[in-house]
Each structure stands twice: as structure tokens, then as C-alpha cells.
């Protein structure tokens, strides 16, 4: 029995695992190889030097990394605060309305992210939905709300909200009602229940949600390009520029590797701690 389970498991894992090995792992290894090539070459058959990483330090690309990480951090923190009450209500308070919310939020995922961000441009720009109407009604307008750092963070919060909301709701659903009631009965205030019972017991969902949002925001590009204009250049933007306008693949690869290293380390650390059977299968 065990032998057959093992064989079948291996066999069934093979298609998707093989596919990802060829079109996920292999390309990343190739990027890693390119990143140590001399500048401006287009094959990996050269003497490795690490000049691209030197360029990363010398040209101040770390600033882009810092901006990306800082905005990702801000977006994640804001998302956590915004989503917690709603996720809590979805898991513990609402009945039918949870389904409405779920469908409503999931549907936005199916609309291309650049259409939605473009919609925010139309909403927030000078002469857009908000400013245009305010000027029409009051006679005085303002300069529009686009092209600054806060609006980029707002864009990140907007785009990645589902990636925080659903893991949080899943995590909160794992908190037994009995444990909350017992704490209440033993004299805990609403705030103490949150700190002592709900936050620690929902930790797996909190971790997954925060990780997803942080990692996706750190690698995001469209928010800063469409909403932020040239307010700041994020790291993913630098990667793209190096590959396309710069025609400097090793530099692009090195920049990509820095992003991959940061994001990958966080993702692998987080995923390795999560009990996926409990989270996805709701088995305890």
C-alpha cells in the first residue's frame, strides 16, 4: 500500500514538476549565469567577471531596491490593517455576505491589472472622475492626485488586496470559536482576545498573506509606471530598462538576481514554515 502511494505520488507529480523544472528553475539558473558575465554580452560563454554586481553598487541601483522594499513594506502593513476586520467578518460574522464578497473580490482578479490601474489614472488625474467633478461642482480644482510615492503605495494596496484578504480569512477561520469564547469567559477583553488568542492562532494565514503581498509588491512594476510616473524608479523597472533600452543583459540579470535573492529568501523561509495540509485542506 505505502509503496503504491509513493509510486503514484511521484508519477502524478512528474508532469507539473517537470514542466516547472524546465520553464521556471532552468530560466532562473540561466539568469544567475548571465549575472556574472561581463557587461553587454548576449551569451553565457564568456569568462565570468562580477562587473554587473559592481555596477549595481556603483550606479546607486540599491536606491531602487530600497524604494521597492520600503513601499512593499508600507503596502503590506496597510493591507494587514485594512483587511483584518473584513477577513474576520468573512470568517466569523457574515454568512451569505461572505460569498458575495468572495465573488466580488475574486472577479477583480480577472480584470487585467493594467486596466484597473488605468481606471485609477482616469479617476485620480487632473480632469479625472474626482477632480473633474469637484471642479465642476465647486468651481475650484486641484492638480490631480497622481505621480507621487503615496499613490504608488495606494496602487499596491489596491492590486494586492485579495492576496491579503483571503489568506487572512483562511487563517482566522482556523481559530476555534471555543478558544475565543473560553478566553472571553475567563475575563479577557476584546483587545486581549485579539492579542492572546486570535493573532497567534491565525498566524499561519497572517504569514502567508503578508508574505504574498510583500513579495508581489516588491517585484511590482505597473503601479509605479502608471500611477507614479517618474516619482521613483522601482527595481523591476530597472531590470526591464537594462534588458530593453540598455541592451545590457548581464546588468539586468544581476539586478534581477538581487530581487530574486531577497524575494526568494523571504518566500522560501515563509513557505517552509507553513503547514500547507492544515491551511489548504483545513485539516488539523
Amino acid at each position, binding site marked *: 500500500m505505502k509503496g503504491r502511494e509513493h509510486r503514484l505520488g511521484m508519477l502524478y507529480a512528474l508532469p507539473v514538476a517537470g514542466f516547472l523544472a524546465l520553464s521556471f528553475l532552468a530560466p532562473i539558473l540561466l539568469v544567475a549565469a548571465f549575472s556574472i558575465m561581463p557587461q553587454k554580452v548576449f551569451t553565457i560563454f564568456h569568462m565570468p567577471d562580477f562587473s554587473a554586481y559592481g555596477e549595481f553598487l556603483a550606479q546607486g541601483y540599491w536606491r531602487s531596491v530600497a524604494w521597492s522594499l520600503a513601499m512593499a513594506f508600507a503596502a503590506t502593513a496597510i493591507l494587514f490593517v485594512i483587511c483584518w476586520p473584513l477577513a474576520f467578518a468573512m470568517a466569523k460574522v457574515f454568512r451569505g455576505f461572505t460569498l458575495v464578497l468572495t465573488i466580488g473580490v475574486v472577479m477583480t482578479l480577472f480584470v487585467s491589472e493594467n486596466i484597473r490601474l488605468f481606471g485609477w489614472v482616469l479617476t485620480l488625474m487632473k480632469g479625472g472622475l474626482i477632480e473633474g467633478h469637484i471642479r465642476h461642482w465647486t468651481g475650484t480644482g486641484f492638480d490631480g492626485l497622481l505621480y507621487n510615492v503615496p499613490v504608488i503605495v495606494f496602487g499596491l494596496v489596491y492590486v494586492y488586496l485579495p492576496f491579503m484578504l483571503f489568506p487572512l480569512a483562511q487563517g482566522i477561520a482556523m481559530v*476555534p470559536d*471555543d*478558544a475565543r*469564547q*473560553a*478566553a*472571553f*469567559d*475567563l*475575563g*479577557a*477583553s476584546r483587545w*486581549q482576545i485579539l492579542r*492572546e*488568542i486570535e493573532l*497567534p*492562532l491565525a498566524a499561519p494565514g497572517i504569514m502567508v498573506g503578508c508574505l504574498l503581498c510583500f513579495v508581489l509588491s516588491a517585484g511590482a512594476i505597473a503601479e509605479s509606471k502608471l500611477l507614479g510616473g517618474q516619482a521613483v524608479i522601482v527595481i523591476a523597472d530597472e531590470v526591464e530598462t537594462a534588458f530593453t533600452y540598455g541592451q545590457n543583459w548581464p546588468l539586468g540579470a544581476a539586478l534581477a538576481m538581487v530581487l530574486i535573492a531577497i524575494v526568494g529568501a523571504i518566500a522560501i523561509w515563509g513557505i517552509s514554515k507553513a503547514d500547507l495540509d492544515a491551511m489548504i485542506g483545513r485539516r488539523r
Partner: protein
Amino acid sequence: MGDIPILQLNGLTKSFDDFTALHPMDLKVRDGEFLAIVGPSGCGKTTLIRLLVGMEDPSGGSIWLRGERIDEIPANKRPTCMVFQSLALFPHRSVGQNIEFPLKLRKTPPAARKERALELLALLRLPEEYYHKRIDQCSGGERQRVALARALAFDPEILFFDEPLSALDYRLRKTLEKELRDLHQRTGKTFVYITHSLEEAMVMSDRIAIMRAGRFEQIAPAAEIYARPTSSFVAEFMGEVNLFDLRDGSGDLLLTGAGNEFATRPGTLMIRPESLRILGPDENAEISMSAQVSAEYMLGSRMQYALSLPSGKAITAELLRENADGPKPGDSLRLGCAASACHLIPEG
């Protein structure tokens, strides 16, 4: 405290939408008493206990603790606490942290918390090393003790129990029932215990309240409920009994002497299986009947017989097994008992 009961319910009711879970209920619980509330599943006993601890709001009536009204106070401000059916131990905390939880909420200093937790571990006969154990490393019986210790650490005026033993196997349940009784005597606290098992209630409690469909049927000490049930529901809930409806005459029963007085009062006559004995050919009893044995079952030291009466009514009798040649299935015989061993339930 004198006459003021520690807990008093006045016309307490609860309804959900169009369903009335609890009809107006009155109850007085004495200080230091062990009261068991017993009833079949769905009778409203869980709703009742949730009202008493404050997890639900009543639809009407009031709850008083030592003469102070508490039904408006939320559960976390009431000086009572409950041991949950699931125990509701915090899985992310150690045994010690679970027990210290209520003390931590009250900002007791860590040293004093630990001292109290160790005292409680000792009181519940758990080794001191358990202080650092994780909850998922404890057995079912150990978890019961941890849950009790946590509730006692809260130092409640009244400790409520919501069937905490129901998930355990028979032998462990029996041991813990006795421990709980013992704990009640040592701590002197008031215990209110919900269960669907009358057997459990009888072993532990001073008084039993029997519930049915959102109402109390009878509230009395165990011995009185056993001997003098006030309704056939209570009589049948106590275990196997033979009930005879005497409102349309004596039926299968032959009543003589003191037995005759039952014939004049309408009601239901209760005869316990162990009160019946086999009558010899010339022997007579105040209440007697002829019956045919249809099956026999061994109960250990006793034998149980299923019998049918001339009208077709099925009854049960239990006899000591000392008689080597007792009746066999198919035998016809006469059974009898004394009028004083029977009880007349006034209702139908």
C-alpha cells in the same frame, strides 16, 4: 449568606427567531452545591448554560448572583466560568500558560502566577513537569485536568461544566466523575454541571434538575428522583421501568389489600424491574400479575427477563442470579410486589 441563593433564575427565557428554546425557567442554586442539569440532546440545556455564563443574551427574565442581577453583564465581566465540552484549551500555549491565562489577564506578577499554577497542578494530581508540556502532548484525561485547573485559577463564584466528559471512554469517565466529586468537596465551590447522562449526574451531584423541551420537569436530590419521579418522562429517563396507566382500570394487574388504593386514584403506576419477584403457587402479593417469559439476558450478578402480560404489554423484571433454576423463555409464571415498593405518578 443565609437565605440568599448563590444563583437564581427568574422566568428566564430564550427564543431564536420563531423557536422557543427555553420557556420561563425558575431555579435557585445553593452556595457550595453540586447541581446537575440533565436532559436529552436538544432539550435546551446547552442554551441554558450559555445564558448562565453570558455567551448568549436572554430573551426575557433575569439571572441573579448572590442577590445581584448579572444578566446584563457580559461573560468576561462575570465572576463565573465554564469548562467547555471541547475543553477549549489554547493549543498555542503550554499547560502552565493555559492555567495562568486568567491570572495573566488580571496582571498577577509572573512569580505568583507560577506558584498558583503549580498548586493547581498538585491539586489535580498532575506532575510538576507538566507545567512546560504542550497541550497536544497531553492525553484526554490530562487535558480534562488542565481545563479544570485553568477554570479554578479563575477562582469563579460558580463553576459551570458543559458535558466535558462526554468524549472520554467509559473507564476514564468513571474515574474522573469520582475525582470531580472529590474536587467539589475539597474546594467547596458551587458546581453546575450539564450532562445527558443521568448515571453521571447521580454519581456526582447533590441535586438533579431534569430538563425536557426547554422546561424543568423535576428538581430534587438523586434519591428522591429515583424513588418518586413526578412524571413518566422522568421515570423513563431514570432507566428501565414498568409503567401502568391506571386511568382506565387496573388492566393486567390484580390489586389486593394496600394495593387497592391505587385503583381509586387516576395516574400512572411505576414498578421498577428489581422490585418484582416470582410468586409461588400459593403466594399472594398486594400487586400481582401473570406473565410469560419471552427472553432472558444476563447482567452479571442479576438476570433480566423480558415478559409479556395477557394484554400483550411487555414488561421487564430483574432477579438475583442465586436461583440456579430460574425461569426459562416460554415459562408462564406469576409476578408480584409490595404496594410500598411502587410509586404512583399523578399525571398521565
